[in-house]
């Protein structure tokens, strides 16, 4: 008891400072999360969600009795159904292709532009400002803009293809071209964040290191490999981890640009979960099981990632 009291008196202001955020996150994220895990072990859907059935009697009173068909605990059935179904592996492959290609392009293009912008160059601040524009435009607006440009009959890309004498492409009729439209849109959206974060990292690398490397006769590529890349490592580690998590769960782009076309072939795990929860008979328990699967994959990824970081001496 006295230990608690000393602890309270020493740490109360730190706790007071984290109370607002803990409260909001606790009510709106942690509680739903725990409940989501519970629901994933039941067969809850739209038809059996009521716990009791109430009937009005003639006198105007209500009598309630337990709903005999209410949802029940079914153990791992949802998970087994998902993992043994064909759809899961399609969604899983799509998610991997989507995440890996988006994060790779974000990182490589963002790094390239950051390196260019880090030089002394005329008009640098204007370039930088204009290059961040995709980040400042609301994502759903950009999604509409890209869908507009990929429109089959009168979109810009097909008009351009026709103009140079090629056949127009039905972008959303094939799994991979459809995926390509979503990936292009998301790469366009996500590069500015990477670029700015990496630019911040570049600016913190001391110039002396470059000068020393130059004196030792290191060429441009060697300087990049031996000074720039190691210097950027802390930033890169963080943004790649965050980028992976965000892209893995990136809902609006797939939903608005491809909407799963053709026939659900470009659905990723998140959009699949959303469809389970909100389309047809709302199957909340299946959606929750999807959510838990996604969460576990990301937790596994993050802990492996963190272990690798630890080995390299980064601690967080």
């Amino acid at each position, binding site marked *: 008891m006295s230990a608690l009291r000393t602890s309270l008196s020493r*740490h109360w202001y730190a706790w007071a400072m984290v109370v607002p955020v803990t409260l*909001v996150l606790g009510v709106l*994220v942690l509680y739903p999360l725990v409940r989501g895990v519970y629901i994933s072990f039941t067969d809850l859907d739209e038809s059996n969600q009521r716990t009791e059935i109430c009937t009005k009697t003639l006198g105007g009173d209500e009598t309630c009795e337990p709903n005999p068909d209410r949802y029940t605990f079914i153990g791992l059935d949802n998970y087994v159904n998902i993992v043994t179904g064909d759809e899961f592996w399609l969604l899983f492959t799509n998610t991997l292709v989507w995440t890996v290609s988006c994060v790779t392009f974000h990182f490589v293009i963002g790094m390239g532009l950051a390196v260019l912008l880090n030089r002394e160059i005329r008009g640098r601040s204007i370039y930088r400002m204009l290059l961040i524009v995709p980040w*400042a435009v609301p994502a759903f607006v950009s999604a509409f803009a890209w869908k507009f440009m990929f429109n089959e009959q*009168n979109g810009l890309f097909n008009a351009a293809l026709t103009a140079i004498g090629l056949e127009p492409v039905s972008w959303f009729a094939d799994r991979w071209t459809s995926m390509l439209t979503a990936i292009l849109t998301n790469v366009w959206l996500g590069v500015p964040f990477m670029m700015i*974060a990496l630019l911040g990292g570049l600016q913190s690398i001391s110039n002396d290191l470059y000068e020393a490397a130059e004196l030792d006769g290191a060429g441009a590529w060697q300087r990049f490999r031996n000074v720039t890349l190691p210097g950027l490592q802390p930033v890169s580690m963080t943004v790649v981890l965050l980028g992976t998590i965000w892209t893995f769960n990136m809902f609006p782009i797939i939903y608005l640009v491809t909407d799963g076309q053709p026939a659900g072939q470009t659905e990723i795990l998140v959009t699949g979960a959303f469809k389970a929860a909100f389309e047809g008979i709302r199957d909340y328990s299946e959606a929750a099981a999807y959510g838990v699967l996604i969460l576990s994959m990301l937790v596994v990824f993050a802990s492996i990632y963190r272990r690798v970081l630890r080995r390299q001496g980064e601690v967080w």
Partner: protein
Amino acid sequence: MAARRRPAQSLLLHATLLGATLIALFPVLWVLASSFKPANRILSSEIRLVDQPTIQNYTRVLTETALPTWMLNSVIVASMTMLFGVFMSATAGYAMSRFNFPGRRSLMWTFLITQMFPVAVLIVPIYTIMSNLGLINTLTSLVFAYCTVAVPFCAWMLKGYFDTLPRELDEAAALDGLGPFATFWRVILPLARPGLAVTAFYTFITAWGEIAYATAFLQTDDKFTLGYGLQTFVPQFNKQWEYLTPAAILISVPAAIVFLYAQRHLESGLTAGATKG
């Protein structure tokens, strides 16, 4: 280094950056150009930048739809999210940066994990909570929901920023008799402006462009935010591009203003903590 760069190299550098800039701006400019086309020509397949330009789309979307109301709602939601978001991220970030209190590590992990659980799946339980709290179809519900999306990342980012401010400042302030809250408020916050500017930008943009929660929580036309309102222009088969394009441009203007204000600070604010390593 700049002096020794050969002209050809310099040309290549500018060409690459110009190309990238063009790609970055193009979709936005295309929507902008389309928004001035008359409704019946907006989907014409000819690539013509300006084709019988008109501002009719703008006057129609502003007078015939509820766009001005939606705009006001979005401004309210985004500003409140910004206010609460910056407040919560700054206090939490400061506590994580300066105090080694029990629960600190688990709090940081919690922040990371909240980013991992897909919003699409959280919506159903959050909806239940909101309706229990009587917040369905209110703008308040959105402010809280958006804070949960933006604050974890912002708190992390600000923790990094506070880490770069020397601890001696806190110690000096304590010697001068300031308590922890006064130190935070009067010494640290004024020095952390760049970090706070980025947080403000991030929270604003998060709230400004969100549609999933808005679609789930709002019910009546007078409460819609822009993101939701705009979707009413996108029925399944007959997209109303003549409303959609000018609305998209109008939506981007306030975001662009906030962005212009914050952009000077973006790099230092985003990566201050991570670069210290």
